[in-house]
């Protein structure tokens, strides 16, 4: 059951990921990217990480991509009608080839292992993923969490100041 589900989702993920780069219209590319994010969220559910899945949809599909679509809409980028032959194609295919080669080598050479440490799959299932993430963020990783928050705050203040100067 789960394997079948996984295969269907993977098919959708791969097709939509290909559509992200092949679509002529930027809005359609953005829609395909949202679809890919959705499939990733489904993988998180299958890996017993429901909190990650919900955050994936909420943050990436729900917030960041809305901003992207918004930008594309306002800049009014029309269908890309650039010429078909360019040097980009050669460089792109060389980089793509080596990336695929790299991935294949890694996948063949390495062996899949379950995560080690106190948080095994059974323990996550027993306590609950959300509870564990919350507890760890506010105890063990409190300082990194606070620093990240301050960085984000600084970024927001910076953005507001930059935007206000023009008005």
């Amino acid at each position, binding site marked *: 059951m789960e394997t079948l589900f996984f295969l269907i989702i993977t098919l959708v993920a791969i097709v939509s990921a290909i559509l992200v780069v092949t679509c002529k219209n930027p809005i359609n590319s953005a829609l395909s990217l949202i679809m890919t994010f959705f499939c990733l969220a489904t993988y998180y559910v299958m890996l017993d990480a429901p909190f990650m899945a919900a*955050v994936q949809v909420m943050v990436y599909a729900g917030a960041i991509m809305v901003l992207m679509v918004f930008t594309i*809409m306002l800049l009014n980028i029309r269908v890309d009608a650039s010429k078909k032959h360019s040097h980009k194609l050669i460089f792109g295919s060389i980089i793509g080839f080596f990336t695929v080669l790299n991935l294949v080598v890694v996948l063949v050479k390495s062996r899949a292992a379950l995560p080690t440490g106190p948080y095994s799959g059974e323990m996550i299932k027993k306590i609950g993923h959300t509870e564990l993430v919350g507890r760890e963020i506010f105890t063990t990783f409190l300082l990194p969490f606070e620093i990240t928050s301050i960085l984000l705050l600084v970024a927001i203040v910076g953005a507001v100041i930059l935007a206000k100067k023009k008005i």
Partner: protein
Amino acid sequence: MGIEILGLPMMYYIAMVAKVLVAFVFVLLTVAYATYAERKIIGHMQVRLGPMRTGWHGLLQPIADGVKLFFKEEIIPSQASTFAFLVAPLIALIPAFITFAVIPFGGVIEIAGYKIPLQIAAYYDTTARQVFDVNVGVLYILAMSSLGVYGIVLAGWASNSKYSLMGGLRASAQMISYELAAGLSIIAVFMLSGTLSLTKIVELQSGMGGFEWYLFKQPLAAFMFFICSLAEINRTPFDLPEAETELVSGFCTEYSSMKYAMFFMAEYANMVTVCALTVTLFLGGWNGPMAVAVPILGPVYFIAKVYFLMFVCMWIRATLPRYRYDQLMHLGWKVFIPVALVNIVVTGIIGYFIN
């Protein structure tokens, strides 16, 4: 019961399909008759009769409307972006409906020795003697409602018309702002419940004859969540994206026929979902007198509460004028978000001293 498919009993599949069908048919019928109820209620509030001609007191009006919209001409503007234009109504409609998967609409019922929890995405574990549901139910709903904005934004952009684009832009700004306020206001509920699972949240509100409802413990959060949700689904008094005096019909100006009907259905389905969620989080869900002893009463109480809140939505629409755009943004960012944050802090302090 003896037959098993892929490791699960046959009854599991039958129960799942039955639950999905019943819930969807219920939501669809509610959506159809909500349009009728809205016209009728607003009519009577404004000392008119509302629809009277089709059937007894206009009862067949939604069916007549549906048939009319089916046979209308389908127009796709020649300058429109075809794919996005066609897919936008679907994107608006689907999140509105799939949200219902995690809302518990009743307790556990027993059919032929097999226990079925009345919630689509849940099953009864016979070894653990416990109902398991999506343990991030509320986050799932927030995630799905954050996708609803795409339908409107895409419809606005793809139509290639000024009014549609303005409607789409307003909608996205409004929905993103009020999503934050709605999300922040229900954090106070999770601080009391300690769980994100909707089944458990309903269980926690079962005692004391209704006084355990989170409405009484978190009145401010309940009020803010309901108002912010109204704004998020573009209901009056926050229906600026389709303000007909300024924008013709907003984001769906260029839509016709069934695609227009789909936006309409999405709006009402969202209203049902928001009311169901408010009932689940604040009004005790399917709890009521005798609901545990007589399981069939659970859905009855649930539906009664949802319909009451839908009546309140229509009441608000009949009573209040539309907000101005700057007032709307002021209310969202400068009133609701700070008040929700203060509510979280106060809940935290009180919770610390009580425990």
